């Protein structure tokens, strides 16, 4: 239908625009304020009334009821009328000072202004505080949908957080079961026990030389230069062990500054002594960290798998340990080869 199709009396109505009754305005804009030409509130939408329970809003001066954040400087009615069509941001002057946004339109024939407000970002809190229900919002207003989404999202977030916590727990559990020492990348104690078990099972077919290496003066590096320096020294030591052994040998960090090297198919005493000597040699060179000069050395105990008629992991380890103790006892920075006949045959090198 075009304007020309209206009856003449309707054309006049068309140009005037629709006349809305108070109830219609309540339904369309449940948070409206009608402010008369004197600047006093004439009518308040039903939802807005709920935000000021037990308070008479009609008759109050608008600027005493609301503080204008935007636009600033609204004091008299003329300021409001001049803002026809402007978006506004207001707060109640009295607590609770819910922040609201809205629009202001000037009414014809000195009827004042109509302000339509909405709760804005604090919607969840406001709805909860004043017990608003979905009927308090016009069906065209997406506030209820917004609340739905907020609630759905927070439920999902809660589930996701639970999942993250469980995954974190699983990660820690996996690390506990891991075979790798995370600092040095070497095999760890668990891996070493596992490998030892396998080697013992295959003896005497598999022959090997085993070195127990303990870093000397490591604690003083840690104490003097800090843990970061200590960690760097451990990593450098690991690199040296890897470089001085072959790819199918086993290098494990068995404890703080203790390492175990298993040299496969190597029961040649001379060869083992040579390797041990080289390792000590290299470890004694200063290791630089962040401009700091870190100095360590190593004591080594060595044993051979063909020392034993009956090979057990405990025996091998405790003999290597005894030889290492001898090295420490003899002034560190040296290696000792364990021999089954006892201490008097322990050979000292370096």
């Amino acid at each position: 239908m075009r304007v020309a199709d209206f009856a003449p009396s309707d054309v006049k109505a068309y140009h005037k625009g629709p006349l809305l009754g108070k109830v219609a305005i309540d339904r369309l804009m449940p948070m409206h304020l009608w402010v008369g030409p004197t600047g006093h509130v004439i009518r308040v939408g039903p939802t807005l009334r709920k935000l000021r329970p037990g308070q008479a809003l009609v008759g109050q001066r608008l600027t005493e009821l609301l503080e204008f954040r935007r636009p600033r400087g609204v004091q008299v009615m003329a300021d409001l009328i001049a803002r026809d069509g402007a978006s506004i941001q207001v707060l109640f002057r009295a607590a609770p000072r819910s922040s609201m946004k809205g629009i202001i339109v000037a009414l014809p024939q000195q009827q004042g202004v109509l302000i339509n407000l909405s709760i804005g970002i604090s919607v969840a809190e406001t709805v909860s505080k004043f017990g608003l229900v979905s009927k308090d919002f016009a069906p065209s207003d997406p506030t209820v949908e917004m609340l739905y989404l907020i609630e759905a999202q927070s439920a999902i977030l809660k589930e996701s957080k639970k999942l993250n916590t469980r995954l974190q727990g699983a990660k820690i559990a996996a690390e506990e079961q891991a075979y790798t020492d995370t600092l040095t990348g070497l095999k760890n104690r668990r891996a070493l026990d596992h490998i030892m078990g396998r080697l013992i099972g295959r003896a005497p077919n598999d022959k090997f030389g085993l070195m127990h290496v303990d870093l000397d003066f490591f604690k003083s590096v840690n104490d003097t230069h800090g843990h970061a320096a200590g960690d760097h020294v451990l990593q450098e030591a690991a690199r040296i062990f890897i470089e001085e052994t072959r790819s199918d040998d086993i290098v494990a960090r068995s404890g703080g500054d203790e390492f175990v090297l298993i040299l496969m198919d190597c029961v040649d005493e001379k060869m083992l002594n040579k390797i041990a000597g080289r390792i000590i040699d290299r470890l004694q060179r200063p290791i630089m960290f962040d401009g700091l000069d870190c100095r360590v050395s190593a004591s080594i105990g060595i044993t051979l798998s063909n020392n034993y008629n009956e090979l057990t992991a405990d025996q091998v380890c405790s003999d290597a340990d005894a030889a290492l103790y001898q090295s420490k006892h003899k002034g560190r920075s040296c290696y000792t080869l364990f021999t089954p006949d006892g201490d008097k045959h322990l050979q000292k090198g370096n």
Partner: protein
Amino acid sequence: MHGLVNRSIQRFVQNTYGEQTWADICHDAELGFANFESMLSYDSSQTEAVLNVTCKKLQRGRIGLLEDIGTFLISDPASDALRRLLRFGGENFEEFLLSLDDLHDRAQLALPDLDLPSLELREHSAKSFELQYKWQEPGFGTLVLGILRAMADDYGALVLLDHSHGQDDVGDHDRISISLLDAEFAQDRGFELGGAH
């Protein structure tokens, strides 16, 4: 199948039949784990395996079991989230029914990888409706039936529900006829818009 569905089955079994029963079901279904994560997705064959083993172990038919799970999801006092989200649909049971048309899209707005059945409500009269249910995952129609039953109860409405199963190339094509006998038959369990805060 989305983890939320799998997790629901798990919660129902654990709650109603105990932890041990659930552990046995996971074992027999050869899942290789004992916990569904609600925020992950699972192959539908795993859901089917769990449902089959559960039916066998509890000596229950799939139709009745799924309906009970649907009811549990709404009425379990320990978990109010789904009930509340559905109550956003309307002030009374009739409005809630009308909101079901949007449920699929609403759910995807919140969780894009959540694929739910598409639902369409036909109003025969003010008291008589038919809900058309379509889903490519076969055999879950009575889960929705259970949810509807529990929601009617939640609103305090007395309803008569009748489920009939249908199938085509795409998947299930079920119908649930709904007679609203008394909208205010019992006490409404209540819903506050801002109740989650």
